[in-house]
C-alpha cells in the first residue's frame, strides 16, 4: 500500500514538469488559437539557459532560473512578433507546420551553440537530502518541484481570475473581436501571452537542471506528452491541463511499477478515448 502511494507521489513530481509545459501550451492555444509544436523546444531552451547560467557561469541557482526565463521570453517574443503574427489568419495546418519548422531549427541551433553532447551541472547542495515519507526516502528536490508546480497553479489562477490583465486575456480568448472593440490591444496582448507561455515552458525546463541532462531533441521528445495532456484536459483550459498532467504523470509512474509492457500504449489510448468521446476534454466546454 505504501509502495503504491509512494509511487503516486513520484508520479506527482513527474507531473509537475509536464504541468509547466502544458500550462503554457494550453494558454497559448486558448488565447491565440495556435497549437505551438515548438513549445517543447522552449522548454529545452529554458533548460539550456539555466544550465549555462548556473552550471557554466556559476550564477546563483535562483537567479539563473530567472535569467533563463527572461532569455526564453526574448526568444518567444521574437518568435511571435517576427513569425507567428503573420499566420494567425491562416488555416491551423500552417500554424502546425510553421511551429514544426521551429522544432527543427531549435534542435540544430542548440547543437551549434552548445555542442551536441549531453551536459549536466553540479548538484546544488541545498537539494541534497531526503524526507522520510511513507517509510521511504523522498528527495527534498521532488518536494520542491511539487511545491513549485502547485505554487504556479495558484499564481496562474489568481492571475487569470483576479487581475485586470487576466480578465483581458480571458475576454480575448472567448471573443477576439469583441475584446478588440472594447479597446484591448490584441496584437500586444497576443505577444504578451505568447511570451508568458514561453516563460512557463522555460520554467519547467530550468527547474529540471539539477537532475536532468540538457541535449538537443529533449524538447521534441516531450511535446507529444504535452499535447496529450492539453487534449485530455481541454485545449485552452488551465484547470484541465493541471489535472491532465497529474493523470499522465501519475499513470506513467504506476505503469512503470505495475504493468511496464503497456506504458507507452496506455497514454495514447487514453488520449484517443478522450478525443473520441469528449473532444473538448474533461473540463472543456
Amino acid at each position, binding site marked *: 500500500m505504501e*509502495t503504491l502511494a*509512494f*509511487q503516486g507521489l*513520484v*508520479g506527482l*513530481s*513527474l507531473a509537475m*514538469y509536464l504541468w509547466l509545459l502544458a500550462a503554457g501550451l494550453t494558454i497559448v492555444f486558448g488565447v491565440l488559437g495556435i497549437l505551438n509544436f515548438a513549445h517543447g523546444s522552449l522548454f529545452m531552451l529554458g533548460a539550456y539557459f539555466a544550465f549555462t547560467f548556473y552550471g557554466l557561469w556559476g550564477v546563483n541557482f535562483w537567479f539563473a532560473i530567472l535569467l533563463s526565463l527572461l532569455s526564453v521570453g526574448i526568444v518567444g517574443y521574437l518568435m511571435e512578433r517576427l513569425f507567428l503574427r503573420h499566420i494567425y489568419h491562416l488555416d491551423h495546418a500552417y500554424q502546425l507546420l510553421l511551429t514544426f519548422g521551429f522544432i527543427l531549427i531549435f*534542435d540544430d541551433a542548440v*547543437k551549434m551553440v552548445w555542442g*551536441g*553532447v*549531453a*551536459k*549536466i551541472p*553540479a*548538484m546544488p547542495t541545498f*537539494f*541534497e537530502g*531526503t524526507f522520510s515519507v511513507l517509510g*521511504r*526516502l*523522498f*528527495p*527534498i*528536490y*521532488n518536494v520542491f518541484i511539487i511545491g513549485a508546480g502547485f505554487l504556479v497553479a495558484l499564481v496562474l489562477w489568481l492571475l487569470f481570475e483576479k487581475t485586470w490583465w487576466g480578465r483581458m486575456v480571458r475576454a480575448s480568448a472567448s471573443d477576439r473581436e469583441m475584446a478588440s472593440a472594447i479597446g484591448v490591444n490584441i496584437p500586444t496582448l497576443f505577444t504578451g501571452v505568447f511570451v508568458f507561455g514561453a516563460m512557463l515552458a522555460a520554467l519547467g525546463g530550468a527547474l*529540471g537542471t*539539477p*537532475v*536532468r*541532462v540538457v*541535449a*538537443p*531533441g*529533449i524538447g521534441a*521528445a*516531450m511535446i507529444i506528452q504535452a499535447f496529450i495532456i492539453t487534449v485530455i484536459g481541454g485545449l485552452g483550459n488551465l484547470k484541465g491541463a493541471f489535472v491532465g498532467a497529474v493523470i499522465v504523470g501519475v499513470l*506513467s*509512474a504506476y505503469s*512503470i*511499477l505495475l504493468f*511496464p509492457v503497456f506504458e*507507452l500504449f496506455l497514454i495514447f489510448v487514453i488520449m484517443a478515448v478522450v478525443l473520441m468521446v469528449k473532444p473538448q476534454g474533461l473540463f472543456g466546454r
Partner: protein
Amino acid sequence: MKKKVGFFCLIFFFLVFIVSMPVWAQTPKKPPAKKPAAKPLGVEVIKFGGMGIMSGPLSICGRMIMMGAQSAIEEINAKGGILGSKCELKFMDDELRPAVGVKNVRYLVSEWGAHFILGVDSSGVAMAIGEIMPEMDRIYISTHASTDRLTEELVWKKGIKHIFRTTVPTYQEAILPAMIFKDFMHIKRWAGINCDYEYGYVSWSLFKETLKKYRPDVEFVASTWAPFWTMDFTPHISAALAANPDAIFSTPWGGEGVQLIRQALIMGAFDKIQLWWHPTGATTDFLEAVTSEVKADKFKGKLWVSGRYIHNWLQTPENKAFVERFVKRWAMYPFHPGQGAYDAVYFVKAALEKTRSLKTSEVIKALEGMELMTPAGRKYIRPEDHQAIYPTPAGRPVYDPAYPIAIVGDFKMIPAKEYFRHPPFEPVKISK
C-alpha cells in the same frame, strides 16, 4: 487544379536531375577497373566510413567513435599512411535508427567509396547493417554496439564473415559482474533498471542466467524498463527500491546513465542498497559528471562500474602515450567507443600490410586470428566469431588529484577467457 503546371514542374525538375547528374552522380554503374597506381594497394586514399549517434543524450558515444578513428588516421597518415596510401574518414549520424544506418552505409560504400565501415553505438543499427555487408562486399568493424548476437548469431551461426568487433560485447555487462558478485554472499536480492531495447534485454537476461548458475539462492525481485529518451528515472528507481533489493543492476548509458545515477543519489538509493552495478560507468562523460559526488564519497563505496576500456588501468607506456595524445587532441579522456575505433583502424592497417590487397575475402582471412598490442592490452580476434578477446576490469569510481575528473580504481580483474562466452553458442533466452 494546376495540373498542367504541376507536370511542367515535374519535367523541369527531372531535367535538372539529369543535367546535374555529372555533379553528384559520380559512381557509374560498374566500378572502374583499378588503374595501376604507384601504391601497392591500388588506391591513393583508403576510405573509412564511420557511423554513430551524434545528437541527443547519447551523442558523446558517436563523437567518441569519430575521435578515436580520426586520431588513428592522423597518426597513420603522419607516418606515411598504409603502404603509402593515405587514410580518410567520413563520419555520419545514424540517429540510433537502423533504417538510417542502412541508408548511410549504402551511401558511404556506393557513393563515397568507403573501403571499410566502422562504428555504431546501437545494437539495433549494427544488426541491420551487418546483414547487408555481404551485398556491399565490405568489412564492418563494430566499435561499441555490444549485443552478443552480432558476433554469436550473425558471424558464427549465419556465417556473415564481413563483421568484426574490437570491443567487448555484453559479456562485460552481464557475465563479469556475475563472476565478481557471486562472492558477495550478503547480496541476495537484485533489481534491474534496464534499457527497453535489445541491449537492455540481452544484458539483464545474460546476467540473471549466469549469476543463477553460481548462486541459486539469488532472487531477481524487480525490473523496470526505460526506452530511449527517458529523462526522468525517478519512477523506475522508486519501483526498483520498492522491492527492497540488496543491489541494483542498471544499463542506461551515456547521458541517460548520468541522469539515472544523479536521480538515484537524490532519492537516497545509496543509503538503502548495498551495491549498484553500473556497467557503463567507466565512460569519461559519466565520471566527469559525478566527480564532485565521488570526491564527497556520496556513493559510499557502493557504486561499481566498468567499461570496455579504462584509460588509467594499464600503466603500459603504449597506453599512457595514447591517453596523453588523445587528451591533447580532443581535450577529453578516451573511453571505449573511441579506443575501439582507434584499434579498428590499426587492425585494418595490420591486415592490409599483410595482404597487400583490398580484396574483402583476403582482408577477412588476415584479420581472423590476428593479435595486436593496443592501448587496451593485447587483443586477439577469435576466428570463430570475429570477436576481439581482451579483459577489462570492474572497479569503483575514485578521486585522484592527478586527474581532473574521477577515475576508476579498486580494480577487480577476471581473465578474458573466463568471462567471455565460447562457441558453440547457446542463444541467450530473453526474460524480463
